[in-house]
């Protein structure tokens, strides 16, 4: 069934992709692809609108300066803004390739940007033109439809230098021995035949190495050129990325403006470890089963500029074994009391975390054993497995989770203005001075941190010890921490109520909670985000900016505070529990309901305002 769906969607995508979509030029072996959909962006803001913005005019001015007046507008650049721009990254046999594919409407316009020196270095073969740098690892190539930048790096060259270091080490060792044996004065030594012979040998080796390196560089330069030609023509024996199942699955409805797809982290890590490290003790592959951890792990991120918000959605997909191991960690129960002790009228932001201590303690030993299980019978993997087993036997997961269940919540409540004293000097007319105490106002946030603990007895014992040792001061069931450094900006209070430990800076709030007088207020949407997700973050942008005193802003932003206050809304981040094999995250940046056509225009307006 899965296969049929993939086949049908592949067919659908191939039909809907315009013939010129450059995605067909991305090889199926690419590890990461980033795409910017020009058409979707233009629907949000036309090129003309963009050119009229301050940011757009600034870019056009830069363009005019850069092209010495030959190109005046973004339109003149000849790019096909309606098409999709792609970037991909590929690792193959120690060679890394970064490639940018830019759709062109008019290939000739681009050449207007080139300086004379570059035009002289341009090679034209049929309808293909390219410039390759002297080292050969960078190519700019274009035809009528596409402009392409390729940069490559060759890991093999780096390995050569590493082996040079090894050779040098042994040479130095030889030299040391010779020095000891000759036992003459320094001057004699440098004139000795032994030294001269040694120098000759060294020089010979150096030349050999250089020749070898130059030969490889030449070879690599040709390889990069061949590769670039292959990309621009899109002729792959193994077909393009559109034959890659994971990539196809990531495409979805294609309504986003920007998409990122990273595939198979295991291969990326494996390729990223230089081969000279293979076989030596630094190589994690010798004792860790990286495949098990990262095998089959892929990441998809999509950026959507909607009318009222900009949203980044991410999705990690992991292999079955890892999903099984991670699931219990994130399968926590959230304490329903948390939402009872928040009043959103005073809330600047919050952060909730919903882990399961029991799940974590049970999963970690398994995760460690499985990560170090290389099947080689090596001492390290055996030891880790044994250690994990012993840990499991010693730890009472259930007991530990009674002390700290794993769900916790931090709320930043009002920013309060606090008078603080400081030392200043007063001078008489003869400049004799005396220290005087002055006061000034600082803005301090109040915070409330809560976590679930069923072990009230432990809390009570700790409090009794604290009070006896004069570290805590009791105040109707709320305890103030006494021994904080004197200038600590806030007081800290602790208390216990309804299976929850509270730690906060506001005595007023804590006393109200303890006596049952706390007035709570929280919208359904917030309640849902806090209780249903593994983690949820909320920032009340408007309120925070409005409450920060103007003088606390960097000088250059002070006259923009009004703009920021009327244009900053909520920012939310939600991280869902694991479902199936995937973990989904979502970052939402809300925009004001008036003043901006959509969230893309909002960001351009924001840049414009900051450019003033």
């Amino acid at each position, binding site marked *: 069934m899965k296969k049929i769906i993939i086949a049908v969607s592949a067919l659908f995508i191939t039909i809907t992709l315009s013939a010129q979509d450059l995605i067909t030029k991305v090889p199926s072996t690419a590890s990461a692809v980033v795409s910017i959909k020009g058409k979707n962006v233009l629907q949000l803001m036309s090129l003309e609108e963009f050119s009229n913005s301050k940011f757009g005019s600034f870019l056009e001015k830069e363009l005019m300066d850069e092209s010495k007046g030959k190109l005046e507008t973004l339109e003149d650049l000849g790019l096909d803004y309606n098409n999709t721009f792609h970037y991909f990254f590929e690792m193959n046999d120690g060679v890394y390739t970064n490639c940018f594919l830019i759709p062109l409407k008019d290939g000739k316009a681009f050449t207007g940007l080139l300086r004379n020196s570059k035009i002289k270095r341009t090679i034209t073969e049929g309808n293909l033109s390219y410039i390759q740098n002297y080292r050969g690892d960078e190519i700019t190539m274009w035809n009528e439809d596409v402009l392409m930048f390729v940069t490559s790096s060759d890991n093999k060259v780096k390995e050569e230098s590493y082996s040079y270091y090894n050779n040098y080490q042994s040479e130095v060792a030889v030299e040391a021995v010779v020095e000891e044996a000759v036992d003459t004065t320094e001057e004699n030594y440098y004139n000795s035949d032994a030294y001269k012979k040694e120098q000759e040998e060294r020089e010979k080796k150096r030349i050999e190495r250089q020749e070898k390196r130059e030969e490889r560089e030449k070879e690599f330069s040709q390889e990069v050129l061949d590769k670039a030609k292959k990309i621009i023509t899109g002729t792959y024996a193994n077909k393009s990325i559109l034959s890659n199942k994971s990539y196809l699955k990531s495409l979805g409805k294609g309504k986003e403006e920007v998409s990122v797809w990273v595939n198979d982290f295991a291969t990326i890590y494996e390729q990223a470890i230089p081969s000279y490290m293979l076989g030596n003790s630094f190589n994690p592959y010798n004792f860790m089963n990286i495949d098990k951890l990262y095998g089959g792990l892929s990441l998809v991120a999509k950026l959507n500029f909607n009318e009222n918000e900009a949203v980044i959605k991410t999705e990690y997909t992991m292999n079955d074994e890892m999903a099984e191991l991670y699931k219990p960690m994130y399968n926590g129960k959230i304490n329903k009391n948390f939402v009872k002790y928040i009043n959103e009228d005073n809330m600047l932001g919050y952060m909730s975390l919903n882990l399961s201590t029991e799940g974590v303690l049970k999963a970690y030993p398994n995760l460690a054993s499985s990560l170090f299980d290389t099947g080689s019978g090596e001492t390290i993997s055996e030891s880790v497995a044994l250690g994990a087993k012993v840990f499991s036997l010693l730890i009472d997961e259930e007991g530990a989770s009674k002390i700290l269940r794993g769900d*916790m919540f931090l709320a930043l409540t009002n920013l309060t203005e606090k008078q603080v*004293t400081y030392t200043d000097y007063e001078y008489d*007319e003869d400049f004799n001075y005396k220290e005087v105490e002055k006061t000034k106002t600082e803005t301090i946030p109040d915070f409330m941190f809560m976590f679930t603990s069923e072990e009230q007895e432990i809390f009570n014992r700790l409090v009794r010890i604290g009070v006896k040792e004069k570290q805590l001061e009791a105040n109707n069931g709320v305890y103030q921490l006494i021994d904080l*450094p004197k200038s600590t*900006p806030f007081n800290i209070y602790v208390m216990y109520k309804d299976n929850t430990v509270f*730690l906060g*800076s506001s005595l007023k709030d804590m006393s109200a909670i303890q006596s049952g007088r706390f007035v709570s207020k929280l919208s359904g949407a917030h309640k849902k985000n806090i209780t249903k997700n593994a983690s949820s973050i909320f920032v009340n942008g408007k309120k925070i900016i409005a409450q920060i005193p103007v003088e*606390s802003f960097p*000088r250059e932003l002070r006259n923009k505070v009004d703009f920021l206050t009327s244009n900053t809304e909520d920012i939310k981040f939600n991280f869902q529990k694991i479902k199936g094999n995937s973990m989904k995250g979502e970052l939402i940046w809300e925009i004001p309901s008036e003043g901006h056509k959509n969230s893309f225009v909002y960001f351009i307006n924001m840049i414009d305002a900051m450019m003033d």
Partner: protein
Amino acid sequence: MIKKTFIYFSLFVCISLCTSCFEILEEIKLNKDGSGTIMVTLNMSKSKTKLASLMLLDSINGYKIPSEDEIDESFKDALYHLEKTPGISNIKKTKDFDNYVFTISCDFKNVDNVNAIFKELIKKQNKNNYTNFTTTNVSYNPSENVFNRYFTYDNAIKKSFNTLKSEDRKVFNDASYTCIYRFQDKVKSVSNVDAKIAPNKGAVFLKIDALSLILGEKNVENKIQLIN
């Protein structure tokens, strides 16, 4: 670990909101024979809320935050260095971690002893960073009755300042450097246009904001002519 993250988060908000600035006060009392007393005060009490928050962290913006013990150690090193310097006596120090005010004072037999305190340090700085700071900071010529405070501005100051992130530069926004010199003779004239002479002519006062000093717009150089 997670609890720590939450608390760090709150501290971080404090650090970004609270203001920071400091004042350095340099006071020299010079006797007719060229001996005298010098006192240097670092007053960071206006930033104490921020500093107290910082001290609860290990590091911020990539800079390590020293603990009280580490600051104490540096203090001890400075005192040891003073004790070793010839002509220096009666070394006193005060440190107030509640208000973040620190002072060191000492008597000197001759102003050259004051120069000797920093000479090696400045030499090292000049050698390592190709700067050109003068190693003579103060001088007193009894025959002409002239007291000089020297200072050579080096572009390296501005360069180092420019490498700081804009957030870190804010520390210098309201910072200042104050010099007070007291004499037994009357002051006839001062060369620094920003310096003020007390009505009783017994003292000279110069306060410069740190940014002007860093950018080279103003400096502490001063030639003070005393009446013979």
